[in-house]
């Protein structure tokens, strides 16, 4: 398994090298410093967050750390994204993303009597650690637009299958908790990201979750979003999350919810040189 993954990474990097001379022309709509749904990472020193979005921190060596700060107290989580592309201006770019979540505290908080009891009070979760790994391959076919293919798998690292887990049989929730009672789940996504005009951007994932059961369970999710970049420091996002799938006992063929966020950023201040 490790060997196969290594081959895939080497192959992708080879493709990257082959097209090393094929660079992205200068953006026509100005430099978009905001996070893009692609293999690109935030510039070092830049931090972004939102009401609902994770906090993303641009690190050195083409890396980006993201954490959901509010969730962290009840569901410790983190993700590290590394852009492996030799030249940041390459049309083809490759990144990998590695993260973990520890949902046990949150699951047990939600297992209660009364309103807000998502899970039965008599079912307590064991220690669960999920590891999520993803490969992101992006192609910048236009200075302002990109398309990305993402391949990911989530593993239940402690192998503590939550055998008594009573899942939430709703399209939006089911695939995100499926790994709690299984060894692994898979994900394939196609992402589109770019800028319409100077201040208006977009991105959208078409994501396919694959959950191994007696028969394969799948959930297809489309998440289109539009951004209005008020400035380099503030932007507004609006969109939708539309899902369909064949999860057990889900009554609706399709579920859709609106999504909204207010996002802000700040840069690490540069130290002034002493004269």
């Amino acid at each position: 398994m490790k060997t196969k993954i290594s081959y895939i990474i080497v192959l992708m990097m080879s493709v990257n090298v082959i097209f090393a001379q094929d660079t992205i022309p200068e953006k026509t709509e100005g430099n978009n410093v905001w996070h893009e749904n692609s293999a690109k990472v935030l510039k070092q020193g830049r931090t972004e967050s939102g009401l609902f979005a994770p906090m993303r921190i641009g690190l050195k060596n083409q890396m980006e750390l993201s954490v959901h700060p509010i969730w962290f107290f009840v569901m410790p989580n983190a993700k590290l994204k590394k852009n492996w592309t030799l030249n940041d201006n390459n049309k083809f770019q490759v990144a990998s993303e590695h993260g973990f979540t520890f949902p046990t505290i949150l699951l047990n908080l939600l297992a209660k009597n009364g309103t807000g009891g998502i899970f039965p009070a008599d079912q307590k979760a064991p220690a669960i650690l999920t590891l999520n790994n993803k490969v992101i391959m992006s192609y910048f076919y236009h200075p302002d637009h990109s398309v990305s293919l993402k391949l990911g798998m989530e593993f239940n690292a402690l192998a503590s299958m939550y055998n008594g887990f009573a899942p939430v049989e709703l399209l939006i929730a089911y695939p995100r908790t499926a790994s709690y009672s299984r060894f692994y789940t898979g994900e394939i996504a196609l992402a589109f990201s770019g800028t319409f005009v100077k201040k208006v951007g977009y991105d959208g994932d078409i994501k396919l979750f694959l959950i191994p059961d007696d028969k394969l369970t799948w959930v297809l999710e489309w998440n289109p979003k539009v951004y209005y970049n008020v400035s380099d420091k503030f932007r507004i996002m609006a969109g939708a999350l539309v899902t369909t799938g064949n999860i057990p006992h889900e009554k609706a063929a399709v579920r859709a919810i609106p999504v909204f966020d207010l996002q802000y950023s700040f840069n690490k201040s540069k130290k002034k040189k002493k004269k």
Partner: protein
Amino acid sequence: MMKLKFSISIFALLFLAACDPFHTKIEDQEFTVIQYEARNKTTPTATPSTLKIATWNIKFGGGRIDFFFDCHGDRVLMTKTEVLENMTGVAAKVRNMNPDVIFLQEVDIDSKRSAYVDQVQYLLDNTDLNYAVYASQWQADYVPSDGVGQVNSGNAILSKYPLNNAERIALPLIAEQSGLVQYFYLRRNILLADLTINNKTVKVLNTHTSAYSSDGTKKEQLEIIQKRVADLDAANIPFILGGDFNNLPPNSTTYCNFDDDVCTEESGYASLPCDVLLEELSNMQIYASYEAAIPQAKYESNQSIYGTFTSDKDGFWNRKLDYIFTNGDFVDGAGMVHQGVSSGGMATMPLSDHCPITTIFKWN
């Protein structure tokens, strides 16, 4: 930040009010009644002179598992094995009673708590009953409370003979509940249908009124039920009404502080205060107008042998909440409360927190 969170909460409530994202609202139209047939039908008596009528709240096949709402335990969900084991017992008792028509309350057809077993179909396929109609009174894609999850539970009428023109009539919601609780809570109803045998039609009605309202909603529901049957009676339409009325008969000597009342106020399932329960005794005006399976005089002569409910599996049936009424005729003395082996021929305590009642209706 607080203003923003408040705004988001208001938006969420408005969203729920404007839409029905979890499909909890039940349209009060004919097509919301589900029709069932047994996979293998039996042949009932072609020209019956009497019909055996029963009513039973089967506690969604939960048997005597200690669920959180009784405050004797904290169970929420059952496994399929548990449900089928309990339903085997329920079916056995139904076969033991051998009714021509049975009114069932708290029947699950597609609920997470009962492993999604369709209990109406199960009973049709494991008894001599051939037809059924079902009307939901608790339906939601997901109830975000107590870990209940998806639920579809309601009233059913099962019969050896075909049932036609089935209809669901909504009863008032509990007014004192908040909008959010009301959205996800039970929606009580009257389920009615025509039972036609050899050109004679009788209206059969099944109901299950509120258990926990202290704002007069139960009284309002009972008044609507009573008005409905009064209209049928005024139109010379024979009816049989059965169900769990969650109300004691008039002149009940014990009406509060029962031994099995262990729920606290905090649980949300505490019994109502004694003065409220005393006042509720006058809700059952229906006794004065129609014949009951257990006549009022008989009940008053020895109330303890007519109890149909207890939440304590180690106790005894201590209050009468279940009834059958008609504007026709029951065979005198035929009414029976199946409290156990000595009255009914089979133990019923393990099968539900209610025991069934039967009587015999004169068809000709």
